[in-house]
């Protein structure tokens, strides 16, 4: 089942009418909420109505009778309670047969529940200690479930404050949480659904003066910037840089758009002893006196990232307003006037939520730096052919396997430009597709002398007797234009031929963004055209492999 249409089942042990209303009234959520009878969590999970996703939000005492007894200070062995957690996990497993995506909240207690007071984390019968064990068990059991995500409800309670839990509304209508707490849950569910659909932001473009550091470098000189040291402002800016660095380690690319003299600003980045983010941490920069919106467009184009994946951070409200107005796809969050709020403002953003963080994600920043070096070589040679030959390109294709399935799913759901059909699948659905005997799916990794771009391509082929079809043709924009595309088609055509197919077809499903796929098929692939969207290759002919590409196909691929 695809994850594009969202019928969201709400399973709760309390009155979820307000939660349902918040989802229904929020057009940006893109879901149709479907309520279930409250108080019947297990029944709802064991026989759920059809839905694309479910949000399961329970109170611990509703799932575990043992925990309910513990709240009454009865002695209950932890093993009994954990067995009840396991039963809950089994019910979730049961629902997965009907509902492909499950979002489950962790368990919390209201702030006023002090359990055994000072003994609550010491005693085996402590309420808080037991709840920690329950959440730990739930997290451990759900960790290896594909398409099941445990959301941290404790953050909703903390952010909603002491009035987030409401005994008054519980007694009035079995509503344990105020609308403020519910809104935080809705925001996290929306972020999760957006991330699963490939909508996570990937690029942060940041201003310099009074954003990355305190002060105006062109006026004060880099030696006098507020950065680090022993003053609140300097420490706050340095911590903000650390928070950006942490973001980059999970795969978010950093870039600079600043109105400054480039030489002056770069000297500060290279020379200031307390600068956390250095030149190598930024994939691109535009430091000049031009309009920042134009600079952001250029940066996104240079990095082959869409504006819908871009975030812009700037202390100046006029710059924010200008970018927001000119580039509505770019997320421009409101920004604190005091740098001491910068870290919290950054860490509270939910736009980076993604269903997985792979090795490729973590290495993404370094890959962009390598790309910058690659492009520098391109400028130094006379022709594209000479440049391609200089790269020493190695393309490896291997059948998808459990270890690469997560990254393959992520790539399928995130990639827009070089994507034959734009189909979106959950990890489970992709795994099921691969399991069909007529289907084959390869992952493609690309490297050259500048670095390893990692797993950046997918080729899915179906062969039915003499007819073969390319079902998925997906390539990250990071490696476009180096004839990796032709190498991938070579893999598909060789497979089709080996399986006895006479024709290999590629049917383009046009999307708003996959024009590069059309251009490749139409202009460079060598396929014959059967219409604007239908292309074919005669498998009696070998599909040529570009001369500068070294192709390594795994033994089991053929």
């Amino acid at each position, binding site marked *: 089942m695809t994850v594009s249409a969202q019928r969201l089942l709400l399973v709760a042990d309390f*009155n979820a*009418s*307000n939660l349902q*209303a*918040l989802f*229904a*009234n929020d057009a940006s959520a893109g879901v149709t909420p479907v309520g279930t009878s409250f108080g019947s969590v297990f029944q709802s999970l064991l026989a759920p109505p059809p839905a694309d996703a479910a949000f399961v939000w329970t109170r611990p005492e509703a799932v575990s009778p043992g925990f309910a007894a513990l709240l009454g200070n009865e002695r209950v062995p932890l093993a009994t309670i954990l067995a009840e957690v396991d039963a809950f996990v089994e019910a979730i497993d049961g629902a997965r047969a009907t509902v492909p995506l499950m979002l489950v909240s962790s368990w919390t207690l209201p702030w006023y529940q002090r359990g055994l007071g000072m003994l609550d984390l010491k005693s085996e019968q402590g309420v808080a200690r037991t709840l920690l064990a329950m959440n730990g068990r739930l997290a451990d059991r759900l960790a290896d479930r594909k398409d099941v995500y445990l959301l941290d409800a404790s953050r909703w309670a903390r952010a909603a404050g002491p*009035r987030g839990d*409401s005994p*008054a*509304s519980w007694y*009035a*209508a079995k*509503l344990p949480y*105020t*609308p403020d707490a519910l*809104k935080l849950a809705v925001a996290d569910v929306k972020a999760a659904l957006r991330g699963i659909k490939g909508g996570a932001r990937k690029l942060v473009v940041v201003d310099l003066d009074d954003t990355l550091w305190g002060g105006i470098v062109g006026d004060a000189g880099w030696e006098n910037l507020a950065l680090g040291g022993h003053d609140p402002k300097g420490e706050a800016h340095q911590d903000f840089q650390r928070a950006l660095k942490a973001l980059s380690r999970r795969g978010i690319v950093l870039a600079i758009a600043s109105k400054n003299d480039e030489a002056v600003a770069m000297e500060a980045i290279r020379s200031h002893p307390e600068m956390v983010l250095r030149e190598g941490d930024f994939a691109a920069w535009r430091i000049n006196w031009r309009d920042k919106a134009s600079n952001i467009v250029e940066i996104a184009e240079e990095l082959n990232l869409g504006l819908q994946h871009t975030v812009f951070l700037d202390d100046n409200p006029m710059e924010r307003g200008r970018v927001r107005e000119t580039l509505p796809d770019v997320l421009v969050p409101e920004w604190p006037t005091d740098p001491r709020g910068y870290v919290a403002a950054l860490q509270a953003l939910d736009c980076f939520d993604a269903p997985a963080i792979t090795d490729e994600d973590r290495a993404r920043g370094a890959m962009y730096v390598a790309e910058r070096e690659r492009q520098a070589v391109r400028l130094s040679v006379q022709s594209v052919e000479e440049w391609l030959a200089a790269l020493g390109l190695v393309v490896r294709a291997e059948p998808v396997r459990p270890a690469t399935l997560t990254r393959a799913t992520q790539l399928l759901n995130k990639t827009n430009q070089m994507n034959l059909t734009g189909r979106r699948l959950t990890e489970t659905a992709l795994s099921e597709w691969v399991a069909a005997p007529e289907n084959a799916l390869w992952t493609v990794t690309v490297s050259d002398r500048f670095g390893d771009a990692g797993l950046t391509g997918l080729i899915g082929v179906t062969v039915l007797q003499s007819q073969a079809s390319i079902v998925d043709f997906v390539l990250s924009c990071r490696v476009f234009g180096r004839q990796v595309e032709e190498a991938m088609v070579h893999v598909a055509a060789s497979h089709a031929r080996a399986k006895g197919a006479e024709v290999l077809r590629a049917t383009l499903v046009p999307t708003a963004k996959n024009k590069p796929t059309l251009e490749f098929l139409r202009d460079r692939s060598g396929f014959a055209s059967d219409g604007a969207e239908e292309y074919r290759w005669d498998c009696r002919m070998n599909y040529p492999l570009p001369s500068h590409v070294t192709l390594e196909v795994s033994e089991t691929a053929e």
Partner: protein
Amino acid sequence: MPYTEPALRAMHKAIAELNDLLPAPERLSTAGDTVLGGRLDSLGVVNLLLALERIVEENEGVTVSLMDLLEVDPTTSALATVERLTALVRDRMQAARS
């Protein structure tokens, strides 16, 4: 009268909060003659009263209880219009302070 302005502010905020939970065509105006009784369903009434109780406590530090209104005829009681409910909140804030 004392508490008129705080009661009105609380009412406006509570209606804004309630409107987040209502479909667009059913959202309430803050005008005094806006009819509540018979227009809001039972959950809508509960949400409005709970929001009022909470907002009055947060903003004014006064605890008022409005749950007794769930027992009366909404079309003729203080729940009939925004103006009448605001007046009741004002009176209860005053009583709680005295």
